[in-house]
């Protein structure tokens, strides 16, 4: 065991980068690192979310805690979240909300006076800090032409009929998804092993054209294609393969086992990161690396110290290479 170095130099290659979607490859590492990144992105990258709501007047159909819950789930632009303080650690204040280091105040004051039902949306939230506002995901998407125009009115909170009023003060705080899902910046983070697909060309040639097409169609995703010119089966998108083994089963059912061989590269991962809009997907990944690093620092700091035994127990001994 001694002198075996586990050190590797993982590389990242970005495939696709948008504000809310990031696709990249992570190579030369193993599942533990990939999964650690995924877990941190979902549960530990901090964002801002409304955490305290003081309701002054609420004559809407939804009750106070229902509204507070809905407000909490509204994603808030959290680019500054990394350098902000958690309100429980804030020295400057007692976490009451009027502190520039840990909290942002929002006000909402809407009254319906017309005969039409009034939609109260995230756009009605007035922030004390112009840089920290609710994410208008729809508005931004409209620029990209992805959404219908009538959905550009922010995130719906409640509807008011004539005479109903909603007046409240809300405080957004920094937090992480582990504590409450509202602080999770990730809609989805997933990865899969990169597949390696080898077609046995010789065996493939024994199939008729119809059989080839049938075999191709057996995969629910578009992995293979029949080349219109050469009439050969080619791999068009190996990553579309979902490891469902449908094609292998099909090959076996056709009496041609070994028609295709599929391996997963155990040190190569394809990541898809989708953001709620609170922070950019790319920033989320960078933050995750940052957090992972600081976690490892914490481990390294306590390495070889007295506290290590207390803090890490058997793991501490393990880290010192003592074995268990």
């Amino acid at each position, binding site marked *: 065991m001694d002198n075996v170095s586990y050190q590797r130099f993982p590389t990242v290659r970005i495939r696709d980068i948008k504000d809310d979607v990031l696709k990249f490859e992570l190579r030369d590492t193993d*599942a*533990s690192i*990939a*999964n*650690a990144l*995924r*877990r941190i992105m*979902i*549960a530990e990258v901090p964002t801002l979310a409304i955490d305290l709501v003081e*309701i002054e007047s*609420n004559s809407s*159909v939804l*009750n*106070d*805690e*229902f509204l507070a*819950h*809905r407000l909490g*789930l509204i994603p808030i632009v959290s680019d500054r979240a990394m350098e902000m303080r958690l309100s429980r650690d804030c020295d400057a204040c007692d976490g009451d909300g009027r502190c520039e280091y840990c909290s942002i105040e929002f006000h909402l004051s809407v009254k319906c006076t017309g005969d*039409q*039902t009034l*939609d109260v949306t995230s756009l009605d939230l007035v922030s004390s800090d112009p840089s920290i506002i609710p994410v208008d995901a729809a508005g931004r998407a409209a620029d990209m032409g992805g959404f219908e125009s*009538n*959905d550009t*009115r922010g995130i*719906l909170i409640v*509807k008011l009929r004539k005479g109903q009023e909603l007046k409240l003060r809300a405080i957004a705080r920094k937090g992480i*998804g*582990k504590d*409450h*899902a*509202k602080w*999770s910046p990730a*809609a*989805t*983070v*997933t*990865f*899969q*092993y990169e597949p390696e697909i080898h077609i046995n060309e010789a065996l493939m040639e024994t199939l008729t054209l119809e059989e080839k097409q049938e075999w191709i169609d057996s995969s*629910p*995703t*578009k992995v293979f294609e029949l080349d219109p010119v050469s009439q050969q089966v080619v791999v068009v998108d190996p990553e*579309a393969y*979902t*490891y*469902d083994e*449908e094609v292998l089963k099909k090959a076996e059912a056709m009496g041609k086992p070994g028609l295709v061989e599929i391996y*997963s590269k155990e040190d190569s991962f394809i990541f*898809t990161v*989708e953001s709620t809009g609170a922070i950019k997907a790319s920033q989320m990944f960078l933050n995750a690396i940052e957090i992972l690093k600081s976690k490892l620092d914490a481990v390294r700091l306590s390495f070889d110290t007295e506290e290590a035994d207390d803090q890490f127990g058997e793991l501490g001994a393990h880290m010192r290479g003592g074995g268990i």
Partner: protein
Amino acid sequence: MVGRTESSGGSVAIGGSAMASTPKFGSFYGGRKEEELDCSSLYDLTKPHTESFDYFVERGLEEAVRRLQPIELKHPISGTSLRLWVEKPNVSPPMKDLGSQALDQRLLPSECRLAGLTYRGIFTADICMQWNNGVVVRHNISYGKMPVMVKSSVCHLRGLNQKQLVAAKEEATEMGGYFICNGNERIIRLLIMPKRNYVVGVKRTSYKNRGPSYSDKGVMIRCVRPDQSAVTMRMYYMNYGSASLGFSVRRQEFLIPVGIILKALIESNEYEIYEQLMSIQSDSKAMKGALGSQFVSQRAKIILEEVRQLSLFTRHDCLQFLGNRFRPVMGLEDKQQHAAVVGEQVLNDYILVHLDNPLDKFNLLVFMLQKLFALVDGMAAPDNADALQNHEILLPGHLLTIVVKDRIQDWLLRVQGQLLKEMKEKPAENDLQLKHVQKVFEKVPASDVSKKVEYLLNTGNLVSQSGLDLNQVGGFTLVAEKLNFLRYLSHFRSVHRGAFFATLRTTTVRKLLPESWGFMCPVHTPDGSPCGLLNHLTAACQISSDLDARGNKKDPLAIRKSVTKVMVNLGLVPVLPKLSNMAPPEYLTVLLDGCVIGHLATGAIPSIIEHLRRLKVVDGSEVPADMEIAYIPCTSAGSYPGLYLATTPSRFTRTVKQMFGDGSLELIGPLEQAYMEIKCPGGNEPIGPKPTHEEINATAFLSVVASLTPWSDHNQSPRNMYQCQMGKQTMGFPAQALQCRADNKMYRIQTPQMPIAQTNAWNKYHMNQFPTGTNAIVAVLAYTGFDMEDAMILNKSSVERGLHYGQVYKSETIDLTELRQRGDGVTNVFARSGAMARFKEQADKSANFIDIDGLPYVGQTLTEGDPYCSVVNKMTGQSKISKLKGSEAAIVDYVAAINTGSKDPLQKVTIRTRHPRYPQIGDKFSSRHGQKGVCSQLWPDVDMPFSAVTGMRPDIIINPHAFPSRMTIGMLLESMAAKAGALDGKFMNATPFKKSSKEGGDGKDFAKTGGNDGTADLLGQQMNAHGFNYHGTEVMYSGVLGTEFVCEIYLGVVYYQRLRHMVSDKYQVRSMGPVNPVTRQPVKGRKVGGGIRFGEMERDSLLAHGAAYLLHDRLHACSDYHTANVCGFCGSLLATVPLPTTRGSLGSLGLGIQQGGKKICRVCNTSKGIETVAMPFVFRYLAAELAAMNIKLTMTLSQN
């Protein structure tokens, strides 16, 4: 973007009160749609209730008072005669009390609910008085306030459109059918009754106990008058060949030889009667359905001989005989009426009361004898009294009609009694004139009539001398709990077999019989004690009413006339002129509503029936649309043949399609159904005769609740039954007018959704208005071990996003008028106690919670022990503060100040609190397929497995072992279908039997495909089209390790319901707490903080484990541990007392539990040898009890 659907909180939201029910994912924005929902399908569900109440107020009361016995009196001195009767009963719509200053004087149902009032209107009638047969004097009298059914014709809500209903603080879909009693919604239960005016052959061993020579065979008929009052009559076969008639008067059965009644009914001679009876027989004995002439003639002779032996030769003799026998029973002892007149009254009141004409009665009696003889001879089998074809329903309005009739009759009799008493005591003063009579009216309170009805509604108990020919005295009403819409709705559709049958040990009455097909749901019955007794009507089942298709009142006489006319044209041989030898098998008797209208030649019947059926569906024809045409053909030892027509109300009916003519829809009943050929779409081609009718749709045999289960045809049948139960226990969205209600307890789910896989019934009954669950991403895998034994793992993040968030609403009414003594003024008022300076300190403490008016702030969060209401006694200045009980936090939701009508200060409030209930470990959830489970963990999102392709983490993980033994394939299908639907953005139709019926497309023969209707295939293809696995599985990675699972995981979307059973209502824990003062053992009961009994069997298991310490801990240390002082010399436990500190002190004599201090044995008079011994306190108690019986208990102490 697939991953986005995962957040369950609000991907499919329900809108305001008028959300459109189009099956598309709609936009969340914008104003409300103004279209009206078509709620006729919902109204149909409560129709039996509302329609029968309309009958009660509009026609039933009138009919009932018309048939009341008038009272007749004669003054002993002046000889003035007085006749008293009742006319023109009227129930008026509910109004506020006089003196109310409200602008709107109407009393609306919502006000009653909130204020805990009863929704009732004034019930009046005219008392008609006639002196010496002179002019009729009318006197309007009030019978009190009669409870009024919501949405009946005297309810303010009748005829309102949905906007107006919402303005009246009701549901837009309000369907009525219930009463509001003290703020509770109560329903009169539908009860099964024997079918009216239909002769049933029965064989019961208990009949032998009627007397010597009674056999076990008889026929029975429940005769119902047009005013719905009933008299059941039985005809018993005597072993010596005769028959005897039995009927009950005031719950006592009277038996008369049938010959007497036959002779008393019509002027006739023995030869004629003999001929009539002999018409039963036919010469061709060999043929099926025929009786032997020998057999009948012998018995006919015996019947006639029996009468002759009593020396009753003429009709007059018989009437006189009856009159003499029944004079005391009829309550006519001191009357001067002739015996024969009394006899006629007996015939009128108790013999075949549904018929007025004695000849009709005679003919029916002859028919009953024929049926009885056929039964005895074995030519006909006894009818099954448990089969639906011999049943009808007791409707709420009909019950009320007979109850009110009974009560008014009772009142009249009491008026009569009072008048007689007064005339006897002081004949001179009480002259029977108007003034006197009116005085008596005041003495005998007429409002008792309505009070008894209210009592009936409140308690379900019936108070009646006669029993009203009902088999039970209690359980007539139930509370319509609005737990969720399914439960609410099924109250109206539930039909109870009768309280009597619940006590029976035999299970035969509970059996599901094929006769119930299409009328009673085979799926929807509870398990446990009411199983099979409490059934539910199918969604399509309707109850016939006394109105015709055009809404006009049906006239039984006119119907009989017109139907007879039609039938005569078709070859019916009418009853008159009498022709003998009209007997089966050549001729069959035709009965219409229990009246013999003639005979038909057997061969002609099928074509006549078809003609009648054609006429039946023609609007406005002579044949009523809901007439039951039951032709029971001649069989050997089958049911007794005949053609039985019925047009009466309260029968079961349902629609099927005719396969002749132009395919009209026909209403059929359960009796005729058994003898009809009805084809089920998609079913096998029938082997027997060619079908004449066709089912409209394949799910028509299911109740509303059962038809909401998606793909229930793929499930094992008990699972569907469980779902019917659990659907009714689900936390849902119970009412849109939640804000205007004050139910004791109400459950609400915060973010309900429409199911993606839904049946046709879902939209038909507007379930979108009251959804009951959430579409959850469900993975089927054994992940952590926390999903064993039907436990399920919830995703913590999903829960935080609002999955299955719920609230419980609790209401409390504080009524200060209850504290008030009679005659007192207002002493208690709602006020903060600080109103008095003396209590300033106390006031400051509660000021955070209680406003100056003594009521809580709306929106205030309360925790255990927080005050929420303060009442100050003005006389003493003391305040009484209500504090929140239970450890659970609550939020004040609503405070209703209720005007009690007077000008006094506020005396009544209703406070509604809201208790948030987030899903937690121990809460119960269920899919719609009887798959219930308890949440065992709220697992962090990152630790949940995730799908490699979509990154989806499931909301719920269930164990695969839930499937093999339960075989709920429907759930697997739903999972795939909803997944495909979610991908497509479409709702999926999951109606059962869809593919096998014509509406579902190919209509393939069910048998040929081996039950595989291709649903799974279709769904697989849809999944493939979206790039998902054909079988609904996905490759998943462990959330903890990031490695791929060996197996592919079944992942899909299932509509999950949160059930109302929650740990926070059930957990029970104690280490110390209240003890029973006598035994010092812990008390029981969760509410009082008691313990759970550690019983014998629990003790046994600890013994078996040798867990001695635990045993000692549970049964002694944690129970009634006690150290007693025992005298070592005399061994007495009770004689030891602490040494008195001062002479003559009596302090703590008997028990000696004071620790420390010197003890003395009073017997041995020494403190030496007193030892402290640990023992259960009950042991000491035992010693004391024994001492009380002069038994001494001594203990021997030893060192070891």
